[in-house]
């Protein structure tokens, strides 16, 4: 067995275990912390695929911003950190069936794919980062989606400022 396969197996186990803990733990802050463990597992997978940039951005964006925002939303909005009440709702049987079906079809798809069983090829790091940067700004690659996403984010930013500003003026009056 290859060393990267062992690392992948252990990481996958960690991801599955922590993802299960996210939905089964009753303490909401613990759920957010387990989510961070899951996201770290995904970072390890990116690093195994030699996608350095994605691995680091995963930590900066998901752990550094989104997970911390989750923790704060929980702390500031809930009086009871501990979740009470049933953890399953009426549709759990259907949801379990659908997720199993999706998992089965994905497994079948990947098993029959031509790349199945092949190890990830070796890449040189500098080239992928350069290629990514150039692809994001070259007109015959991703410049349009990149710009559209930037404008969308800017609109969201201005919208957030506008919403916050309106509330402040109302409370002043």
């Amino acid at each position: 067995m290859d060393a990267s396969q062992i690392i992948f197996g252990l990481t996958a186990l960690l991801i599955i275990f922590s993802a299960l803990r996210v939905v089964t733990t009753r303490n909401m802050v613990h759920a957010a912390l387990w989510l961070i463990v899951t996201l770290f597992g995904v970072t390890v997978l990116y690093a195994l695929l030699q996608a350095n940039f994605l691995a680091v951005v995963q930590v900066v964006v998901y752990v550094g911003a989104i997970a911390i925002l989750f923790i704060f939303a929980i702390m500031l909005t809930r009086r009871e950190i501990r979740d009470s009440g049933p953890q399953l709702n009426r549709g759990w049987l259907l949801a379990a069936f659908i997720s199993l079906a999706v998992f089965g079809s994905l497994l079948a798809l990947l098993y029959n794919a031509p790349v199945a069983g092949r190890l990830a090829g070796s890449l040189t790091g500098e080239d992928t980062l350069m290629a990514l940067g150039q692809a994001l700004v070259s007109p015959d690659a991703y410049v349009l989606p990149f710009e559209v996403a930037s404008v969308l984010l800017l609109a969201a930013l201005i919208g957030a400022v506008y919403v916050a500003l309106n509330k402040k003026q109302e409370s002043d009056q």
Partner: protein
Amino acid sequence: MNFWKDPINVAADWLKNVFTGWGLTDPYATALVYLLGAFTMVALVMLLDVFLVWIERKVVARFQDRVGPNRVGPFGLIQPFADIIKLLIKEDITPAGADKVVYNLAPVLSLASVLLLWAILPLSALVYGVDLNVAVLYLVAAGALGTLAVIMAGWSSNNKYALLGAFRTVAQMISFEIPMVVALLIPTILSGSMSLKTVVERQDIWYVILAPLGFIIFLISAIAELGRAPFDLNEAESEIVAGFHIEYSGMKFGLFYAGELLHAFTFGGFMAVLFFGGYRFFGLEQIHPLVAVFILMIKALLGYWVIMWIKYTVPRIRIDHMLAFNWKFLTPMAFALLVVTAVMHKLLSGTQPWVYALGMFLSNVVLLLAALEILRTSARNQRRQEEAALSAIAQTSSH
């Protein structure tokens, strides 16, 4: 390769041969050598950390016109070991209602987030952990882990002051992350690479000369990220007692304290690498790799000294002032500097080195003067408005 020219790598190769001689296959021997290398690095850094305690206490004493530790050993050099023994034999208290696992994990994560940074710090051309091509982003990612540790400590302590400290930390870290990322992009633009080793190699003129404003922005946001005075709102002793680590005692507090000191020193090292030529110093680094390591350590200590100098000189900033300063002054200036640096670098890249250096330096000075002028005008307008309002009140009351 001989041992004199490259001691670290030759030693690593020798160790790997020993392991393969014992019957290990090549990848496992490499992994074992890397593991031992990381372990040695962490051990040496922690040993350095012990003496940072002595340096910090000695320097703060000088700033406050005291002598500092001088009883245990020559110049008080053994003092940190006495401190360690004291911390270890203190009673270890876990507050009632604390979240035990998270409470115990937080100090470890806090120190680990600092130790992670040493993986990417190029100590010399041949002595470094890893030459990552996204090192600049890695620096920000490790900072995010430090923030997470503070939140975990603040929340799990089951203490209102600790939670307030955690809230303040997040407000501060999330805001100052933005000018820091922008300031980090300036060496990236100037060198054309995010790898710190390449940044040092291409730094024929120190970037502090090409982008002095970038260095100042990095210094300010680094101090904010460290949570040191004047940005030590998360542990402001006169307001929230000790902030996020109020409930920690003994060695758990010691880990936070050691992490803070090492963090400051590490940022001194990053300042040296990004803006002061790293391990290079007029060709002296070519004598021997360990001389280069020594040069970097001296530069890092100077950076650490500047951070201490600011800490023990400037009083604490108020939280609304801190946020306004960041969002209304530092962030816009950082973005303007980014644009100016990119344009000037492209315009002047073909010219003589001295023309290039002078142009970059002057563009920074002009930008700083313009920013200060805008600031002065807006402050003057604000004062005029307030004075007009005051005089209007005075007139109505006199009638």
